[in-house]
C-alpha cells in the first residue's frame, strides 16, 4: 500500500469515528435535553398561592402570616368572581324554563372550570380528595385552565370521512346578554391577582412524600425505594458475583461442567428482565416465602439474580486480565493461593470488577419489570429500614411507567413524570460518577 492510500484510509477512519461519536452525542442530546428541561420544571417553576396553601396545609411549611395576607389579597379578587356567580344563580331563577335548562348546563361547566382554576367554590362541600382541595398550583397549568374557562371545546363531526376536529367557542359570547358575561374578561384580567404567580424553588419535590397519588408533593418515597432496591440488590449480587468469578477463574477445573456453567451464566445475562420478575414472584415470594407478598427484600433479591451474571462476567474478565507475573511473584514469596487472590489478584482486578458493579447498579436502579411483581407499588410512603422485609415500596422506574400510562390523570402530571425521570437519570449518573471516581483512584494507586 502506498503512502497516499494509507493516509486516505487513516483520514476516512478518523472521519467515520468522529461522525459516529457526533451522531451518538446528538442522539443523547435529543433524549437528555427535554428530560433535563422538563424535569427541572418539577423543582423550579412559577408557583401560585395555591401551591403555598398546599405546602402549608399538607407539609406545615411556609410562613403562615405571609400566607394569610396573601390569601386575603387573592380572596378579595376572587370574591368578585363568586359574587358574579351568586348574581347569575339568582338570574337563572328568573329565566324562562327553556333558557334556564340551557344555561344551567353551561353554568355547571363554568363552575367546574373555575373549581379547577381556583379550588373549591364557596358553599361547596369539603372535597374528599386532596386534589380537589386546591386550585392550580402551577402557573402554566393555571393558564391552561383559564383557557378551559374562557372557551368551550366542541367537536366538529360534520364531515364523517375525516376525524372529528376540535374547535373552541368563546363562553363570553355564549353568555352574552347575561350577568355572567362580565366574569370572563374579569378572570382573564385578574388571574394574576387571584393566584399570585411567583418563581418557586420547590426543593421538597425531592424530599416530600406524594400527596393524593402525585397530584401534590414530591417523590421521596420513590427515590428512597430505588436506593433500597438497587443497593439491596448489590449487597446480594456483588459479593456473590465476585466469589463466583474467583471460583470460575481460579478454582474450577476446566471441563464439561465448568463450560456448561459458564455458558449458562452468559445465557442468563441475556434473559429478558420480565422473566426475572416472574421468577422472583414464583421463587422468592411463592416458594421461599421471603415475605408475605411484595417486599423490598423480594425485589432486591430478584434484581440481584438479574444482575449477577453481568457482575460475574465482568469480574471474571478483570481477574483474567491481571498479569500472571503478579501471581508468580506472590506465590514465590510463600503466599498461599487464597492469600494471593485476596491480597494481589483481587486488588489488581478491582477497577474492572467495579466497572461491572457500576453497570449492574445502574441497571438495578432502572429496571422496571423485575420489581412489578416483587416489590413495587404505585403509591406509598417512604418505608423505614426495618420494613424492607415486609413492605413493598414505590420506586422511580415503576412509578414513571405507572404515572405515564396507568394514572387516572397522567396528562396533568407530566411535570412529576419528568421530575422522576430526571431524578432516576441523576441517581444513575451519580452512582456511575462515584464509581468512576473510585475506580480512577484505585487505578491511580495501582499504576503510579
Amino acid at each position, binding site marked *: 500500500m502506498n503512502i497516499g492510500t494509507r493516509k486516505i484510509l487513516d483520514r476516512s477512519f478518523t472521519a467515520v469515528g468522529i461522525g459516529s461519536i457526533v451522531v451518538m452525542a446528538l442522539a443523547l442530546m435529543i433524549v437528555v435535553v427535554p428530560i433535563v428541561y422538563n424535569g427541572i420544571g418539577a423543582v423550579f417553576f412559577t408557583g401560585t398561592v395555591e401551591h403555598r396553601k398546599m405546602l402549608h396545609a399538607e407539609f406545615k411549611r411556609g410562613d403562615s402570616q405571609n400566607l394569610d395576607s396573601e390569601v386575603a389579597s387573592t380572596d378579595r379578587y376572587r370574591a368578585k368572581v363568586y359574587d358574579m356567580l351568586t348574581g347569575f344563580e339568582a338570574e337563572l331563577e328568573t329565566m324562562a324554563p327553556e333558557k334556564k335548562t340551557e344555561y344551567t348546563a353551561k353554568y355547571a361547566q363554568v363552575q367546574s372550570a373555575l373549581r379547577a382554576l381556583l379550588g373549591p367554590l364557596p358553599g361547596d362541600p369539603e372535597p374528599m380528595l386532596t386534589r380537589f382541595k386546591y386550585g392550580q398550583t402551577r402557573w402554566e397549568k393555571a393558564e391552561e385552565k383559564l383557557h378551559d374557562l374562557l372557551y368551550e371545546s366542541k367537536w366538529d363531526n360534520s364531515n364523517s370521512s375525516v376525524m372529528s376536529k376540535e374547535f373552541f367557542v368563546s363562553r363570553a359570547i355564549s353568555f352574552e346578554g347575561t350577568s355572567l358575561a362580565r366574569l370572563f374578561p374579569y378572570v382573564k384580567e385578574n388571574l394574576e391577582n387571584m393566584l399570585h404567580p411567583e418563581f418557586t424553588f420547590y426543593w421538597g419535590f425531592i424530599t416530600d412524600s406524594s400527596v393524593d397519588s402525585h397530584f401534590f408533593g414530591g417523590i421521596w418515597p420513590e427515590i428512597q425505594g430505588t436506593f433500597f432496591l438497587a443497593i439491596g440488590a448489590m449487597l446480594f449480587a456483588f459479593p456473590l458475583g465476585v466469589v463466583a468469578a474467583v471460583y470460575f477463574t481460579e478454582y474450577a477445573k476446566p471441563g464439561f461442567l465448568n463450560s456448561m456453567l459458564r455458558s449458562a451464566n452468559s445465557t442468563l445475562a441475556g434473559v429478558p428482565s420480565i422473566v426475572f420478575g416472574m421468577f422472583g414472584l414464583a421463587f422468592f415470594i411463592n416458594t421461599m416465602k421471603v415475605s408475605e407478598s411484595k417486599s423490598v427484600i423480594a425485589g432486591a433479591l430478584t434484581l440481584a439474580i438479574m444482575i449477577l451474571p453481568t457482575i460475574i462476567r465482568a469480574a471474571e474478565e478483570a481477574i483474567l486480565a491481571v498479569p500472571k*507475573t503478579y501471581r*508468580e511473584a*506472590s506465590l*514465590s514469596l510463600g503466599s498461599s493461593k487464597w492469600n494471593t487472590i485476596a491480597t494481589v489478584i483481587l486488588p489488581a482486578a478491582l477497577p474492572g470488577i467495579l466497572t461491572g458493579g457500576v453497570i449492574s447498579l445502574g441497571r438495578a436502579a432502572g429496571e422496571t419489570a423485575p420489581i412489578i411483581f416483587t416489590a413495587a407499588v404505585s403509591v406509598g410512603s417512604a418505608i423505614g429500614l426495618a420494613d424492607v422485609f415486609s413492605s413493598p415500596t414505590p420506586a422511580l422506574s415503576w412509578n414513571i411507567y405507572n404515572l405515564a400510562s396507568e394514572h387516572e390523570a397522567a396528562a396533568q402530571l407530566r411535570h412529576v413524570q419528568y421530575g422522576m425521570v430526571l431524578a432516576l437519570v441523576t441517581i444513575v449518573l451519580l452512582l456511575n460518577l462515584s464509581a468512576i471516581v473510585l475506580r480512577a483512584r484505585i487505578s491511580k*494507586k495501582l*499504576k503510579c
Partner: protein
Amino acid sequence: MLMTTDMRKTSESVPGQKSTREIYLPPQRSTITGGGNAHIAAKEFSIYYGEFEAVKKVSADILSKYVTAIIGPSGCGKSTFLRAINRMNDLIPSCHTTGALLFDGEDIYGKFTDEVLLRKKVGMVFQKPNPFPKSIFDNIAYGPRLHGVNDKKKLMEIVERSLRKAAIWDEVCDRLDKNALGLSGGQQQRLCVARTLAVEPEVLLLDEPTSALDPKATAKIEDLIQDLRGSYTIMIVTHNMQQASRVSDSTMFFYEGILVEQAPTAQLFTNPKDSITEDYITGRFS
C-alpha cells in the same frame, strides 16, 4: 585448579553425604563453613510441557551455600529447570515432571510436599521484573507480613535491610510510599531481589537478574551475591559468561534440555570436558 572429577559420577551419590563433594570447590572459596551438602539434588529429572520434554533426565547436585550458575543458549531449559525448584511450573497446567528433585532430601514433587512452605524457603527473582502494583514499602513488606510480621517498626527494619542488601536503598529511601511500578526496569529488578531477600529464604533462584541492569547496578547485584554466598544457596541463570565466572562456584551448562556439563566454575571455563561446552563458552556457537 586442583581437581577435575567427572560430574556424572557425583550426581549419582546420595544427597546430604559430604564425602567427596568438597573437591568441587575451587580452593580459594572453600572457606565457607557448613557448605558442601547437596541442598538440591536432581535425579533423572525431566520436565515436560505437554509432550515436549524441555528438561531431559537431569541429574545434578546443587551444593548448599554455594553459588551455582546455569548457562546455555536461549530456550535450552534454564528457566524451566530453575522454576521447577520452587514449583513455579505448577502454574502451567500442561507442565509435568518425571524423576526426582530433592530439596533437603525431600522430594519437591512428592505427594505430601507443602509447596507454600517450599516457596518460603526457596525464593525466586524472575527473568522479568514483577513488582506488585503497590507501594515500594508494601512490596518488600509483603513477604514478612505474610509470615506473621506485623510490627511497623520491625517491618521498617526488614524493608531497609533488604533494600540496602539489594543496593537500591539510596535510590528509593525517600519514596517508599510511591508505587513500585514507577521505578525503572533496573530498579524494579533490584526491588524484586530485595523483596525475595525480605522473606529470608534458604535458597535464592535468580533468573537473569541483571539482564535489565546497567553495569553499575549489575556490579552491585554481583557484590550482593558475593555477600550472600555462604549464607544462602544461590542459583543464577545468566547469559553473561564473565558474570558466571565472576560470581559462581559451580556452573551447569544446559543444551537443548540436557545438562551437558556441571563442574567447578573455573574448571568449566578453562577446561571444559565437552566440545559443545567449549564452543558455547568461547562464543563459537551458532
